[in-house]
């Protein structure tokens, strides 16, 4: 590995053309070798040159856009764009038509690709006056935030950021040509920069989980059993599903387990050592805007005992700061976490209202994460919750995620979400939505449990016991808006 992300992958293909790059489920889906992937990418690059010879303005190409179905054709297009220096917007296939159209317009994309029967189909887009601002210099990929409200924001990532991130990930996980890495996340997610792109850059094998079956415990367990990955990265949902599959898993080849995206309940965490007996466990903190920023390695004992895992050490080259208003918290205390990483975006595209998320301090651009953290007396930083999840109940600040944690810490509770809803008497009342793990538990018992561990105002006014799983959005996080519909 000595060049850039794209040049290293193409070099790996020349060196070991027969090696498997993208593995399908053994016995079901075909593998794609490095030679095949490179050939497909080169053909795609020639097609792009033919179709989109124009559109290269003074500041470079207008972006292309891809509805990122997880197929070899999509991955080859991404590789082709990386190699040719064409910016590419990756869109979730689950976005509605209107949102897709809005994002494509905001990014100023010149054409939109969809995968049809394994091949790319192109729709050329008008070069209207509304065709968005030029992407920043050096942009290769444009990802989107996964916010559950409103239109996602566009997050451009430069070649330098992608090169730096995939190099760090390779070193951190010891990726090489023998590595097998499970890719559970959808192709448009930032997690793929590690699962797929860092792996390919180091000549390893990516085990592609079919997004349509990504929530089936038996299918996922089969992938782990037959694919024998060394690295498994995912959101809490993945580990909950794997824990459900339990003994069928046989994850003894796994060396690194990366928990990302959210607080993983202790109930799920405590099963990890048994599922992955030889793995180092990592709590990874990051977001689309900055990519992985902090990592906390932990062992089985801490997985079972630690109430909230620390965010860990900043990855090399990353700076962190805790700010309470304008005041930097250097000792114990709490505030919003700011990070500055070598992997971060230069800023959102076409989001002037959100430009305050990025601010310059000490000659660096920092990203305001919106995450509320607490630095303990031990110097360790722990996530308290989103600043957005902070609500005022009867004049007292309550973080609803803290309440959820108290609930999900109990074996009787499979899932819990706490939402602040308007209340005619109190102004705002907390409602807890709880799915039990089959055990008999009543709302009154849950209330007693909360009372033992929470400030009185943080005890939910209402406990709703739910029969089925809580509704989730595309990242596996609970969809709070849909929950509210249960209260009338």
């Amino acid at each position, binding site marked *: 590995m000595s060049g850039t992300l794209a040049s290293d992958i193409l070099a790996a293909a020349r060196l070991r053309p027969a090696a498997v790059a993208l593995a399908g489920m053994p016995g079901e889906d075909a593998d794609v070798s490095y030679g095949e992937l490179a050939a497909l990418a080169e053909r795609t690059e020639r097609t792009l040159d033919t179709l989109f010879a124009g559109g290269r303005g003074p500041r470079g190409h207008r972006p292309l856009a891809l509805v990122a179905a997880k197929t070899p054709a999509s991955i080859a297009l991404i590789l082709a764009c990386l190699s040719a220096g064409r910016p590419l917007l990756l869109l979730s296939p689950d976005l509605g038509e209107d949102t897709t159209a809005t994002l494509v317009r905001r990014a100023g994309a010149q054409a939109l690709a969809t995968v049809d029967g394994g091949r790319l189909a192109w729709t050329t887009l008008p070069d209207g006056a509304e065709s968005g601002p030029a992407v920043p210099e050096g942009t290769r990929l444009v990802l989107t935030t996964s916010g559950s409200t409103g239109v996602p924001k566009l997050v451009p990532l430069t070649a330098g950021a992608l090169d730096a991130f995939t190099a760090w990930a390779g070193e951190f996980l010891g990726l090489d040509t023998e590595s097998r890495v499970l890719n559970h996340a959808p192709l448009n997610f930032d997690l793929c920069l590690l699962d797929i792109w860092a792996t390919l850059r180091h000549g390893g094998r990516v085990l592609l989980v079919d997004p349509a079956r990504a929530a089936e415990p038996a299918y996922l367990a089969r992938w782990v059993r037959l694919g024998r990955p060394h690295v498994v990265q995912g959101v809490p949902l993945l580990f909950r599903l794997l824990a459900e599959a339990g003994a069928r898993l046989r994850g003894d080849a796994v060396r690194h387990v990366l928990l990302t995206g959210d607080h993983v309940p202790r109930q799920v965490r405590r099963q990890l050592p048994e599922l992955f007996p030889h793995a180092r466990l990592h709590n990874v903190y990051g977001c689309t805007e900055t990519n992985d920023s902090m990592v906390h390695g932990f062992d089985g004992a801490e997985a079972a005992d630690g109430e909230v895992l620390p965010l860990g050490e900043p990855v090399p080259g990353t700076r962190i700061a805790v700010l309470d208003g304008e005041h930097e918290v250097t000792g114990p205390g709490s505030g919003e976490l700011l990070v500055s990483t070598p992997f971060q975006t230069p800023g959102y595209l076409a989001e002037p209202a959100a430009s305050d998320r990025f601010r310059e301090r000490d000659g660096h651009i920092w990203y305001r994460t919106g995450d509320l953290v607490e630095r303990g007396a031990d110097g360790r930083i722990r996530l308290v919750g989103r600043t957005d999840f902070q609500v005022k109940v*009867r004049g007292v600040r309550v973080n609803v995620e803290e309440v959820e944690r108290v609930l999900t810490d109990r074996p009787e509770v499979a899932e819990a979400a706490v939402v602040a809803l308007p209340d005619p*008497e*109190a102004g705002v009342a907390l409602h807890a939505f709880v799915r039990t793990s089959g055990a008999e538990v*009543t*709302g*009154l018992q849950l*209330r*007693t449990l*909360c*009372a033992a561990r929470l400030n*009185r*105002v943080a*005890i*939910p*006014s*209402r*406990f*709703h*016991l739910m029969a089925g799983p809580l509704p989730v959005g595309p990242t596996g996080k609970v969809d709070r808006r849909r929950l509210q519909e249960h209260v009338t």
Partner: protein
Amino acid sequence: MSLNQEITRHIVDEYLPGTPPEELADSYDLLRNGVVSSLQLLRLIAWLGNHYDVPFDELDVTPDDFRSVAAIVGLIDRHRRSLGTSSIPAN
């Protein structure tokens, strides 16, 4: 219905919808467990005062007197005894 049952039923209906009345123990701490907030306590006291004809505002009561169903029943009983009436239902 006994006084205990009546008050339990009211508290469950108003503040713990969905909970079977028999699950709410007489000794359950309504304040510490957040069943009744300080704001709601005023509403509960008003209801008790109207329903059982107790002039709470003239009595020397503290939130502790309303901490549980048992405490509330004791308070009403004491008040009735002081007036020479009984809470024992005539069933």
